[in-house]
């Protein structure tokens, strides 16, 4: 067993690296689109970039440089200890093999901005009025309305995806989002009703677009929190439906740990 473990460790490490934050099921060499390049159209189906296979490649051989990891949130000092303690608790629970149940255990969708990390493929459909982004995981949909004024923070009805308005600056689509529920969190970072998510989306070439995300929150953040996500085209992909209909994982009511509910075969009930 020990030998198996030793031999398997590098493979597992590579596999986990490969699977890190990206669906590990993307094709090794995705077919390229033959559509003419339109710098003002994000329409189509997309995977988060880099693909797992690209993540292990020599970076100098990549057509598009890999984006840097999302940096730690610039929380104000008074909020940092609680956030760090929470993250440490999650890591320690995982290390013990007793992971803490999270929002996914309760079949909750990502919301914004987490949805844009594109856990699964993502589809963009645009008309004159709006750009609609569909994330396969949890059937998530957000709508970005063009040339519309956002509501003031106190008038923005809170939701998972909030209210988004977009306008073009050259060939960059600039999108602002407000109105995210206070318990819809990215990386467990708390936020206020005054959080604003700014996105700058730009086609890099016919098959890649980047999204520079900047979160501001005068109550919780001491400065803007910025990172970049890149997406790679997945041509001709047909999105699957995703209804989180029955999760056999549940939160232990005593410990809060994620557990699996063992049931008899459904047909035998």
């Amino acid at each position, binding site marked *: 067993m020990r030998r*198996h473990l030793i031999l398997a460790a590098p493979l597992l490490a590579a*596999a986990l690296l490969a699977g890190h934050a990206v669906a590990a099921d993307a094709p090794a060499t995705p077919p390229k689109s033959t559509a003419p390049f339109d710098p003002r159209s994000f329409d189509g189906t997309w995977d988060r970039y880099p693909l797992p296979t690209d993540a292990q490649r020599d970076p100098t051989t990549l057509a598009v440089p890999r984006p840097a990891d999302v940096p730690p949130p610039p929380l104000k000092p008074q909020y940092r200890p609680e956030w760090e303690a929470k993250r440490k608790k999650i890591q320690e629970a995982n290390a013990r*093999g007793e992971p803490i149940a999270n929002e996914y255990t309760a079949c909750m969708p990502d919301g914004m901005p987490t949805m844009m990390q594109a856990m699964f493929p993502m589809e963009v459909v645009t008309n004159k009025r709006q750009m609609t982004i569909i994330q396969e995981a949890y059937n998530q949909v957000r709508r970005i309305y063009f040339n519309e004024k956002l509501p003031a923070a106190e008038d923005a009805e809170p939701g998972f995806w909030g209210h988004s308005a977009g306008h073009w600056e050259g060939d960059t689509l600039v999108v602002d989002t407000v109105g995210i529920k206070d318990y819809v969190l990215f990386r467990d970072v708390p936020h206020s009703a005054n959080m604003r998510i700014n996105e700058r989306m730009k086609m890099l070439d016919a098959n890649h677009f980047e999204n520079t995300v900047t979160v501001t929150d005068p109550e919780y953040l001491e400065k803007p929190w910025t990172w970049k996500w890149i997406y790679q085209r997945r041509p001709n992909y047909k999105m699957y439906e995703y209804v989180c209909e029955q999760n056999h994982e549940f939160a232990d009511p005593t410990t809060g740990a994620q*557990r699996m509910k063992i*049931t008899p075969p459904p047909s035998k009930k």
Partner: protein
Amino acid sequence: MKTAIHTLARGLGLALVVLAASTAQAHHSFAMFDNDHQIKLSGTVADFKWQNPHVYIWLNAPNEKGEMKTWMIECANPGILNRVGWKFNMIKPNDKLTVIVAPLRTGEPGALLKQMKLADGTKMENGGPAGPPNIPID
């Protein structure tokens, strides 16, 4: 040399824990399953549910002590599995199936699928971030 390999393995083990923790940000943690002690099960399918957030196989198979159990085996979701070549109707009750799984740490008869071999010999993996098997299926 042996010590060096062990040190390396321990280091990688630690790296795995850290990576597993950060991977959990993407979706959910697989830490409730014992990745280091994967087992092979051969048996008969009792049921198969193609649904989100996870596909499940119920498999009647003996444990390592030879006791018959009904195992509940967690797979990825229909989208991931379709993309790695599965089909919603490829497994049916009474099918013979061999699997490599990471069992629950609690000792209950539940597990995470790593690899499976259908009655016709076709081998399939679980796709997604669940990771590959670390013991042979044949």
